[in-house]
């Protein structure tokens, strides 16, 4: 029972990006995907979500190749929180979150009791209930980001992918979001792959971290094992120091250049 990324190579017509990435995420765990800009993190999420077919290798969930599933079946398995960009302006928050129920709806999109319940729950979990009737164009960037999270939660999938979900969030909502994701993974066995740039958030909330650089997997394992000063200095081409808190979490700080 796990997400297996089996020797995946992938890219775009113009260039190869991922080179033989091999990685397993046990069910119910949170994997933080780290790496410098352009390393291929978003590309890997595309392969995991089924929208980009790998050139080589496979992505398997519970032994099944997710690229062989029909779109609807896949959408009941994997939900994605993309980076908030150019959302349709006139949709209300509730409408947008309801679209997360698409994999369970007919072609006409008529929603039932269970769908409304799931939407209400997702809105509550993301603190969006008071904004339910607002059109998306009148939300802040962080609120839009939370709408996309709520939509993914309404999808009620066992696997959740997030691409830089905390970028637009304030400090409070950053820890709210990460704690929510962690609680869901603990309580419901949700398996999570999230791209984050904040190494300390990764260390704090992820069960495992993986570092991508130039499309290759540099290291994967527990935060304490992977986040070493020597490795981070090499990958990010910036001198860093790694301290340890009283609770034993690594804390990464950029040293003066």
């Amino acid at each position, binding site marked *: 029972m796990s997400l297996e990324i089996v020797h995946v190579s992938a890219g775009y017509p113009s260039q190869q990006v991922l080179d033989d990435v091999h990685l397993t995420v046990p069910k119910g765990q949170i994997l933080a995907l780290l790496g410098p800009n352009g390393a291929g993190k978003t590309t890997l999420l595309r392969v995991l979500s089924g929208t980009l077919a790998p050139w080589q290798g496979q992505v398997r969930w519970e032994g099944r190749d997710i690229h062989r599933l029909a779109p609807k*079946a896949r959408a009941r398995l994997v939900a994605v929180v*993309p980076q908030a960009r150019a959302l349709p302006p006139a949709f209300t928050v509730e*409408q947008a979150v309801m679209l997360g129920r*698409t994999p369970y*709806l007919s*072609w*006409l*999109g008529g929603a039932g009791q269970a769908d409304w319940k799931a939407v209400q729950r997702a809105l509550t979990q993301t603190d969006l209930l008071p904004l339910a009737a607002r059109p998306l164009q009148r939300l802040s960037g962080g609120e839009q980001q939370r709408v996309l999270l709520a939509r993914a939660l309404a*999808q009620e999938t066992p696997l959740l992918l997030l691409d830089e979900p905390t970028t637009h969030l304030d400090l409070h909502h950053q820890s709210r979001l990460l704690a929510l994701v962690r609680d869901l993974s603990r309580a419901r066995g949700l398996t999570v792959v999230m791209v984050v740039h904040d190494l300390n958030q990764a260390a704090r909330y992820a069960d495992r971290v993986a570092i991508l650089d130039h499309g290759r997997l540099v290291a994967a394992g527990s935060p304490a094992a992977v986040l070493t000063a020597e490795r981070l200095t090499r990958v990010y081409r910036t001198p860093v120091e790694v301290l340890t808190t009283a609770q034993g979490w690594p804390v990464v700080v950029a040293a003066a250049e």
Partner: protein
Amino acid sequence: MKTRWGRAFWLSAGLLVLAVGLSVTVGAVPVPLPVLARLLWAGLSGRAVPANLPAYYHTIVFDLRLPHTVLMLLTGAALGSSGAAYQGVFRNPLADPYLLGIASGAGLGAVLILAIHRPAGWGGALALPVAAFVGAVLTVALVYALAQVEGRLPTTTLILAGVAIGSLASALTSFLMLESEGTLQRAITYLMGGAPLSGWQPVLAMLPYWLVGQAGLLLSGHALNVLQFGEEQAQHLGLNARRAKALILAAASLTTAVAVAFAGIIGFIGLVVPHVVRLLWGEDYRREVPLSLLGGATALLLADLLARTLLAPRVLPVGIVTALFGAPFFLWVLRRARPTAT
């Protein structure tokens, strides 16, 4: 939500009934409402026309006004709903069968089959929309391919590609018309927005295609909603985005094609009506498509009324009237759309 949508629907339906009433009663020979009611009642119940009514009323209503009104109704409805669908698929408030050149492409298809084959009678009437459909689909595919920049469809390239392809199609159409002799020329002038066809034949020939196209569009509301988040997110949500887009574009092109094949090229209804619907009732394509269908029919009936009465007894091409109102609206939308669409 439900009641608001119900109100929108009944309001639109009521306006349409009003427009139909005006369209049938107003004209060179006005038909008073009581006379119309009695005629319709007699016609529907299969009884003879009341003896105390002048016989010409029957001819005017059943052979002239009604077929024309129904033709305009079906055409306007087709332009309204297909406009909403094009705006949804292209995610662009300026997408419209006319501006994207699709109507001109459909017109070229229709003229080509008239020039090559010169079909007549029922066979010809039923073949015309098929040819127009082929022209429309080829135009959409071409405009889509030309307008794409790095996987996106920016407003500027979309409109430019549409205008360029549309002009090309119009030029070819004009060329064919010049080359043809008198009879064909008369048969195809209406395609350029001239006098529309009359009688029941075009209406009946149009109807089967119209029903198929409209059914397709009315079923695509939810898919259009999902597509508003872009192809990739639509896939995340379980929609086969490419296939859904292709199916919706096919339905919209069929709907546009039947309108063009029997009523000629009429601009701006498909642009203005869905826009007004969105402004009034918010964005949800499950409502926008049916409301644009009703609104499009109403708008074209009113434009046609103006075309017939403004310079009576002369009849203006209805396309001139829709352009007169639509073009300024287009510019207004263009200015409003600028900050978000690039």
